[in-house]
């Protein structure tokens, strides 16, 4: 679904909803109906949600990096999704509170017929909205499965054969040129043409393989690359769904009210027995009527049946439960992206282990993987190698490794340890000043002090060892004062 299409749909729905809001406002003024007024505010909340989504989409179109935002604005859609999800949760909360109040103090509906008609009109508009945004609700789930499959798609390119065949020639040529360029850069000063030729062939074939995988996974990733936009639209869809459910409740309630409720008419002596809860302010009328009926001994008609008055809050509570149940996954997903957690489909420990097992890589630390938006995943790592001369080769291998994992934006910092001792292998050679510790992104291993060396030595006995050992590096290796601080914090 193109960006323009999304844009158009949002704008269309926004205009429709706003127009209907105005209509409902006018009708409520004319009929002096409070229920109409509150329903119009539901429409207004819809308008707000649509506006937030629209602003997010407009922002996210600017994907160029600028001085203000070096990543471009693509994250705006995830933000829009989070804002909409929290907004919806808060609205559910207020609806719940209103429903509880209604239980304590039930109201009759005035002008039920007008409410029915306007409610049906609102329902139609919301159904149209649901239809417009429907593709995103289910597709949100699909987005996940695609994201999960990208990893599989990398290693076994079985899909999209036609894509591969079409771009086969192009891919070959591109790979060749890329290999040549990189060869020129990294291997100046090495053996003669022969060696270069052989090596470039090897690299060509490897590149080609990688290229194949790249094309295959690319298609899958393209499909899931709309996940950010899908999140945003899911937020909108949920708002419209909430509104639709609200309209359904209004219509059902008004219909039942019209046909089942026997109201009190002005001329008869009539009581409303439903207003006899302990919370009522009408207690005095109840006792008055009681004495009246005793006095006259006649029949006093009662308005009823009472359960009709409790129908509205009950349905509201059910609606709130449904909405919260469907909103929570969206809330969680967008929050996890914004918190810069590792994306679901990536297993950090396994990745770390495989990275360490690459040829030429001595140690890996400060590995960070996070999701910018959708399928744009970013990784940074510090890699310790033997010497700079062979580094560009290793760099190429590392990039290809990350590419296979679905991470295409990486920054790899090479470090070359001055001594080959084991203890220095997994320390960062290049930290900032020691006093900058609280301002680092994360508290990790610091310069060699006796304490950290001891910690490092014990767990790094085999630097190519099992992934299990090395994952602990995030937790254990800390600057001593930082460790003390965290210990004290955790006792609170």
């Amino acid at each position, binding site marked *: 679904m193109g960006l323009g299409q999304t844009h158009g749909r949002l704008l269309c729905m926004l205009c429709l909803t706003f127009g209907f809001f105005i209509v409902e406002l006018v009708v409520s003024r004319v009929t002096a109906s409070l229920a109409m007024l509150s329903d119009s505010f539901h429409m207004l909340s819809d308008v707000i949600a649509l506006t937030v989504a629209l602003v997010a989409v407009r922002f996210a179109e600017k994907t160029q990096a600028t001085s203000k935002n070096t990543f471009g604005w693509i994250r705006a859609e995830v933000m829009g999704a989070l804002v909409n999800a929290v907004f919806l949760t808060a*609205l559910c909360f207020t609806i719940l509170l209103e429903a509880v109040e209604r239980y304590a103090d039930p109201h009759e509906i005035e002008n039920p017929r007008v409410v029915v008609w306007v409610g049906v009109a609102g329902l139609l508009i919301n159904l149209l909205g649901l239809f417009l945004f429907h593709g995103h609700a289910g597709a949100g789930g699909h987005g996940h499965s695609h994201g999960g499959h990208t990893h599989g798609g990398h290693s076994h390119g079985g899909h999209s054969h036609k894509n591969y065949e079409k771009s086969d020639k192009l891919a070959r040529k591109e790979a060749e040129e890329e290999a040549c360029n990189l060869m020129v850069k990294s291997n100046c000063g090495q053996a003669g043409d022969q060696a270069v030729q052989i090596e470039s062939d090897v690299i060509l074939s490897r590149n080609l393989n990688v290229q194949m995988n790249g094309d295959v996974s690319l298609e899958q990733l393209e499909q899931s690359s709309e996940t950010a936009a899908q999140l945003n639209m899911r937020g909108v869809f949920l708002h419209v769904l909430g509104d639709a459910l609200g309209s359904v409740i209004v219509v059902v309630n008004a219909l039942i009210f019209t046909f089942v409720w026997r109201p009190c008419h002005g001329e008869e002596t009539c009581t409303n027995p439903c207003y006899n809860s*302990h919370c009522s302010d009408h207690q005095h009328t109840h006792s008055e009527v009681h004495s009246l009926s005793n006095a006259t001994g006649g029949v006093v008609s009662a308005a009823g049946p009472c359960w009709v008055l409790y129908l509205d809050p009950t349905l509201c509570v059910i609606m709130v439960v449904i909405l919260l149940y469907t909103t929570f996954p969206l809330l969680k997903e967008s929050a996890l992206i914004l918190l810069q957690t590792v994306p679901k489909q990536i297993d950090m420990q396994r990745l770390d282990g495989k990275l360490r097992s690459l040829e030429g890589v001595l140690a890996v630390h400060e590995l960070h993987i996070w999701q910018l938006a959708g399928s744009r995943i970013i990784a940074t790592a510090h890699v310790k190698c033997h010497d*700079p001369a062979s580094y560009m080769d290793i760099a190429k291998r590392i990039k290809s490794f990350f*590419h296979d994992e679905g991470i295409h934006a990486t920054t790899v910092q090479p470090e070359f340890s001055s001594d080959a001792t084991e203890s220095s292998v997994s320390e960062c050679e290049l930290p900032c000043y020691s006093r900058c510790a609280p301002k*680092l992104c994360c508290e990790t291993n610091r310069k060699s002090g006796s304490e950290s060396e001891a910690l490092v030595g014990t767990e790094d006995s085999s630097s190519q060892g099992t992934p299990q050992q090395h994952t602990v590096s995030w937790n254990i290796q800390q600057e001593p004062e930082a460790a003390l601080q965290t210990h004290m914090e955790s006792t609170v």
Partner: protein
Amino acid sequence: MGRYTGKTCRLIFMLVITVVFFVAEIVAGYAGNSIALVSDSFNMLSDMVSLCVGLLSARLSRRRGSARCSYGLARVEVVGALSNAVFLAALLFSISAEAIKRLTRPERIDDPFLVLVVGSLGLAVNVVGLFIFQDCRWMCGRARRAAGEKSEEKTVMNGEAGPLAHQAESQQKDTNQSDGQPLNIRGVLLHVLNDALGSVVVVVASVLFYVWPDDANAPCNWKCYVDPSLTLVMVAIILISAAPLMKETTSILLQMSPPDLTVATILEDVSRLAAVVSVHEVHVWELVKDRNVATLHVKVNSEFGKSELRSLYAQIREVFHKAGIHSVTIQVEISDDELDGSLCSNPCMSTGCLKLSCCPTEPTFASGNKGNQSHSLGEVSVDMVDGTKNVLRERDTKQLKGKPTETTKF
């Protein structure tokens, strides 16, 4: 102890007070048959929700990095503050809807004395809350300064003796930067402020009804309009106070560069270093306030030995350190081709990956200072490098053809 303990203690204390008052108000409302009290108690309920969110984020944000969150959960505070702000906005929306309904159909307060009493109690609770969350700033600042002096020891970077002159400078920065309240507390503070102003409105309205009592059957006069109109004024005040918090949290969550830094200046400083040919793929962002992270690719022009690389790293880190960025990841690319000044020598596998990289329309903050065409880093303008015979570049420019240079001002 750090201010972390102080923060959660205050939150827990406020939560306890709010729960107690909420229960008291509900009981009083049911006992006294007043709907108004019951609905006022729900304000306390929303306060409790925001306090719980604040408490949860304060606790979670202390967690270390793990395999699921490589940066730890430091950002939970930011997300929690944003959620509190949006939650507050939604509450304000429904409050203003109620107020507008009241304006169209005004009602009088039935039992002004009871409402006055409970309203004043609520106001007292909220003022206590405001006071609790406000106090610590000057005290904390003094404590931190003292701690900073104590821990000033050798400043060594990269195994070499770094310049010692920056001690005073960074200490200065410390005290300047930590003056604002933590975001977490600011979110909760807004909720408490909302409640406090609401109580003020309740007290004012009930005082009016108490001092000038109305006949129960008389139509509603001007006094009935005081409550809703004051409520709308209150909504406006709180929205204005919430705006800076929302702006700050969104700028952190959108990965914007820190507001007091000019990326262009940093780039210029880095590219002026002797060994650097060009710099590209620069990203600077805030993890949370005062914790900035940067990544960049640096092109150097010859085979480097370990010590040259080390000193290059030291120089680059020094530049970033002066700018206040202490977590930097530098990708070094060794390139001999001067013409290829600013393109990545180590890109991902194919150009198709550009779409899936962090920034698909790949502008490069190119600064060639070795006789290449130098591009102004200036404002926000982003210039594309002209195509040459290099096939890699041709492919790139083909992809990027049609995207004009843009100056985007935020």
